[in-house]
Every structure is written in structure tokens, then in C-alpha cells.
């Protein structure tokens, strides 16, 4: 159960890497605070509280679960803490702002999708050049939608790819 990293695939991986870097620059040029989805503000607020040592809490009282606690900040019980922890980690390691850290995480996960799809296509016998063409469309689509869904896509594709390879080997 492993990815087909063999010598024959190296030129294609180089091309994918080039696409990924170019796309990261392209998507990075779009960065703006107003570009962050409203739900992502909850993740950012929790990340900020984690960095400040306040725990898994939010300063945005929006859901009934928050109102029930009657305090600010309120313990975040609506969204899971994984992504805020990741944002806080990137922020602490790189010094990037929390918003930029979130954006960078989403771009990286987003760009992992075409790479995984390429391996999947290779595995199912699609011509590699056509595979590159198909996955390259992934580098552009729907960058306006909710960031956490990009991460979910990446995880889905990872498991599907693993499942596919498992079937073959």
C-alpha cells in the first residue's frame, strides 16, 4: 500500500511540482482578509485563543451552544479543534499572521489534490500526459468556497487513492 514513486514518474512529478508552485503563487496573490469564509472566522478565533493560552475558545458568540455558556470567550463546541490547532502551529512556527496561516494551509491541502489524483490516474492506467492535463484543471477551480472543504477533499482523495492501490497490490 504505497504510492508509485518510481523513476518513470519523476518527470511528471516535476511537472506537477511546477504546477503546484505556480498555483500557490497564483492563489497566494488572491489573499485578502475579506476572502476568508465566515465559518473560518470561528477557526481563527479558536486559533487565536490557543496561541494566547486561553484554550479551545471562541470570541464570536454565534451559535446557541455559545449563548448557553453565557461567557466570552466561550468554549468552542460547534467546530472541531484540529484546524485551529494546525493554524496556531503554523503561526507559531513561521510567524505568519493567523489569517495568512489559515490561507497557506488551505492552499497546500488544495494543491495536494491534483498530485494525489495523478497517482490515482496512473494507477488506473490513464495515459500520464492526459492525466496531467486532467488534474491541471484542479489547480483553478472554485477557490472562493469554504476553506475547510478543500481539506476534506484532500483527505477523501487520499483514502480513495490508498484504497485503489490496496486493490491493485
Amino acid at each position, binding site marked *: 500500500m504505497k504510492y508509485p514513486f518510481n523513476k518513470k514518474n519523476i518527470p511528471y512529478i516535476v511537472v506537477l511540482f511546477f504546477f503546484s508552485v505556480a498555483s500557490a503563487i497564483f492563489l497566494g496573490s*488572491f489573499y*485578502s*482578509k*475579506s*476572502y*476568508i469564509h*465566515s*465559518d*473560518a*472566522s*470561528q477557526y*481563527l*478565533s479558536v486559533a*487565536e485563543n490557543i496561541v494566547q493560552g486561553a484554550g479551545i475558545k471562541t*470570541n*464570536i*458568540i*454565534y*451559535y*446557541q*451552544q455559545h*449563548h448557553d455558556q*453565557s461567557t*466570552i*470567550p466561550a468554549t468552542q463546541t460547534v467546530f472541531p479543534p484540529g484546524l485551529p490547532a494546525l493554524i496556531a502551529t503554523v503561526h507559531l512556527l513561521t510567524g505568519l499572521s493567523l*489569517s495568512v496561516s489559515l490561507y497557506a494551509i488551505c492552499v497546500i491541502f488544495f494543491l495536494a*489534490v491534483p498530485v494525489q*489524483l495523478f497517482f*490515482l*490516474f496512473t494507477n*488506473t*492506467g*490513464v*495515459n500520464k500526459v*492526459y*492525466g496531467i*492535463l*486532467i*488534474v491541471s*484543471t*484542479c489547480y*483553478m*477551480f*472554485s*477557490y*472562493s*468556497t*469554504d476553506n475547510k*472543504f*478543500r481539506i*476534506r*477533499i484532500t483527505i*477523501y*482523495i487520499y483514502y*480513495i487513492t490508498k*484504497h*485503489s492501490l490496496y*486493490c491493485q497490490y
Partner: protein
Amino acid sequence: MSLMIYFTYKYFIYRNSSSFKNLLILMSAAAVIPALLFIRNYYYTGSLTGGPSVTEGSTIMETLYAIRWQFSMLFGYFINGVDIGIAEISLFVVLFLIFSLCVIDIKKFPILLKSIIGLFSEVAKFSLVYIALSLSILIYFSITKSDGYFNARYIMVLFPFFLIIFSEIVRVYMESHTKNYIRNGVVIFCIFITFLSGQYELYKYHIAERMSENSTGSLIYPIDNIMINDMSLTRYLEESITETNPLLTNKAQRLWVHLRIPLVSFTPNLFTRTIWDNIKAKEMIEKYNIKYILLYKKYFNSQSKAFDNQLFYKNVINSDFPDWINVIYNSDEILFMEII
């Protein structure tokens, strides 16, 4: 849900330990989170689906229009309504070619389709079923439970699976026309251009939206131009709002990204059964010791079922202010109030 249905079906077909293992792993992963959400929804709203089923306001045509719009937001086609651009022309050409091939060999088409699907890999078959089931479930709940609300982010997760199927069609096609290199290249190039032109339209749309006054960044622009105590309202809020006296606003989540100050919002009725009338609003204001309220009028849609429970905002927009409110600033766009 679609994962659960798919793997349950596979188990009943194969009835072996491998399919049982898949069912157990993927079904439990897919079931645990929705189950927790259902319990949470029922606890807070009295309904498993999370709030009222607000369907009376929309027709099937409106729902279909909403779905069509969200597909445009994903693929880029018809994003400008009836305006036809390169993306739509490319799409028409590809669809016309496919349609022509079907008409030429109309009797063989079902057999051809069946044989193509028969040649699909397990992953592609799974993708096909997953997309079909997911879309059916999403559209069903959109029509029956949420007033035709349908968001592109729901179907975004299906995009890679769509590409998996597409790659399989390419593979099957190539394997049956191995020696027609030029024709194969032209076919793939045409489809590739069709994809990319749609994405280009999407790109243009987002650039235009970012430049417009209606962009999400416009939350700051209007309050930057309001002067309170010789400073902009933005700065005034940054200086005066703390955790002991947060701001009540109808755009809490988006505004927080810009201001990073403690914010409180009325929960929409999708997530609560609380009716935010003047009494409930006053209770909440006292609970958090709120001093100011900022209402973005143009973002509060009083006709929307989602905000049906926010009676306090409806009252103040109609200039029906309770006696514990002092209006500091009131325009077509912004209403800024102080608690007396």
C-alpha cells in the same frame, strides 16, 4: 449518508469479511459525525435537521435555479446568466459532438454506456455511485428542508470524483481507439479547453466581485466613513469593545476577521428555537453587558426564513425602537445604537 448506502449495498452483494470491514470503517466514520450533529440539532432546535423546514417560500423552479447557480460557481458555465462566452460555446460544441455520436448510433448507445461503465475501475464505479447518491440526497433535502438553499461548497467535494470518472472515460476511449493518435489528441484537447474556459469565467467573476462594492470587504468601508468622537467608527469599536462589553452585530463572523474584537450575534433559526424579540434581546444584552449594537441593514434580509426569529432587528429597521435604545447613527446601510 451516500457512503453508508454504498458500502451497505456492497456488503449485501459480497457478504465477505473485506466488504464488512469496509462497511464498518467507512460507515462508522461517515455516520458518527452526522449522528452527533443530529443529536445536537434535536437538542437545540427540536428537529433532527436543525431548525424549521422552510419550504413554503420557494418553488421547484427557484430551487432548480439555485442549484444551477451553484453549479455555475463550481464549473464556470453560465455564470453571467444568459450571456454566452467562450466557456459556453466550448460546452455547446462538446455536448453537440456527444449528442451527434449518440444520434448516429442511438440503438447502440445504452449498450455502449453499459460497456463503458463495465470497463470502469472499482474506484470509478464507486465515484459514479457516490456522486449520484450525494447529489440526490443534497437536492432532496434542499427542496424539502431548506427553502431551496444549495451551496457550491456542498458539491465541491464531488469535483475530484467527477475528474476520476472523466479520466476513466478517457482511458476506456483511448484503449478502444489506440491508433487514432491525432483524433484522440483533438478530443482530449477540446474537452480540456472546455474545462479551462469554464474556470477562466469563474476567475473573471471572482476578480469582478472582489473589485465591487458588494464584496465581503465592504463591511469595513461603510463604518470607516462614520465619525464618532472625532474618530472613525472602526477605530472607536476597536478601542471601546472588550470581552466585558462585546458588540452585538448581525455580521459577527465576517466582521471578526477584520476587527478581532469580541462579538455577539443572534443565532439564526436554523440553529436555535429562540425567538429574538425585544425581551430576549434585552436579556441577552444584559447577560453579556453589551453597550453597542451595529446593524448592517443591507445584509439583513427581513424576508428570509433564516432570520425569521430576529424580531428585534426587524423592529429597529422599521424605526420601532425600544426605550432602552439610543440611536447614534442611522443611514440606509448602517444602524449604530447605544444601550441606555
